[in-house]
């Protein structure tokens, strides 16, 4: 397959794909869901390329992905569909010391609503300012702050279940 030129629209999207992949995975519950969301987003972006105003391509794509995620998730019932992915599908470049701690954190993230999760991830993963989140999602900044606050509170509660004792695998 021919690689699209760097200054073509496709080429610019291609260059964004790695970081888009990280963001889409941060919104979803499994590697497969993350890839699917990424694929749908790219498909939509390509189809709508005429609507892009020529500025901040990345921001435009992130907004499209966030909306796809929020709309898509709303269509399903809230039952968590959990998949255990094949070990070879997961890459661990920088694993947290304790795999159980990682999975507790993922569980806590999976317990967030789409609204709260996407605000948190835009801030934490994408490094958006609160104002940028407000603009990207077309919501008031006060709403950004309350969603962020709720997300953090919820994670905090989930992470300290009282009959759970955290052990660290000694190195």
């Amino acid at each position: 397959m021919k690689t699209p030129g760097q200054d073509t629209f496709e080429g610019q999207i291609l260059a964004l794909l790695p970081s888009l992949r990280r963001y889409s995975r941060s919104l979803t519950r499994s590697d497969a869901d993350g890839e699917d969301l990424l694929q749908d987003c790219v498909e939509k972006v390509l189809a709508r390329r005429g609507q892009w105003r020529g500025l901040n391509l990345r921001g435009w794509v992130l907004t499209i992905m966030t909306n796809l995620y929020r709309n898509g998730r709303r269509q399903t019932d809230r039952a968590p569909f959990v998949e255990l992915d094949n070990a070879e599908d997961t890459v661990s470049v920088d694993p947290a010391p304790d795999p159980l701690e990682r999975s507790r954190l993922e569980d806590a993230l999976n317990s967030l609503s789409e609204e709260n999760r996407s605000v948190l991830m835009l801030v934490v993963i994408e490094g958006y300012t609160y104002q940028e989140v407000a603009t990207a999602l077309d919501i008031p900044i006060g709403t950004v702050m309350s969603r962020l606050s709720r997300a953090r509170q919820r994670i905090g509660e989930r992470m300290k279940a009282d009959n759970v004792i955290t052990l660290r695998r000694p190195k």
Partner: protein
Amino acid sequence: MNEINQTVTEADLHAYADGQLPDQARGRIEAWLSDNPDDAARVAEWTARNADIRSLFAAYEKSTDADIGLVTGRRQPASWSKRLATMAAIIAIFGLGALSGHYGPTLFERPDLQLTELETLPNEARNAFLVYAGEVRHPVEVFANEEAHLATWLGKRLAVQDLKVPNLQELGFKLVGGRLLPVDGGPGAMFMYEDQAGERLTVLVGRNADNRSTSFRFASSGNIETFYWIDGELGYAVTGEVSRDVLRKVAEECYRQFPS
């Protein structure tokens, strides 16, 4: 000083944790935090968690061979929306099934309550301990003198490659042996250990494809303590009539030795 500090809001604390404040404002928040340990703890928790979340997803920032196909329109089949459609279809089919079950003859009695392995594991572990730890002559099927055979045999039944029987010598427990037994409706393994005083404890391992990893949890019943956890598809439980502290060390040691 205090008058200025009183204007610190929760939003300021978030902004501080997220590195969204100019230097001058940071100084003001830091002064506030040094006087308000509760807020300082919250901010520290958020900051650490930000790093954990970034670390959790950092590895996904990569390109794949399929990326070019993705932007040139030659994409792979299954997609987010198709999967949702599939889900909807599955739900619809189950819905039909449920309806026909309601109006038709009852073919399957659905159990009242489906417990996940996380819920059944501590009970199964306690029962296995009660039944086998008291056995004098036949506590296990395969004794420790055939440890290699024990590991291969039970590893095969559990579909675990290179199953290692945990070595708890450093904690003063010697392997007695092990046996095959049902765990969560499938083949499971039990290993038994005893210390010099003859105090026994058991380690139970079971597999369930529906499992999701958890942290360590404990359950008590009378004097019997169980530590249990799920790592991937495998559920583990360590049970004994020993102190929770000892058992926790055993659990920690098993967790360290079992493949993750």
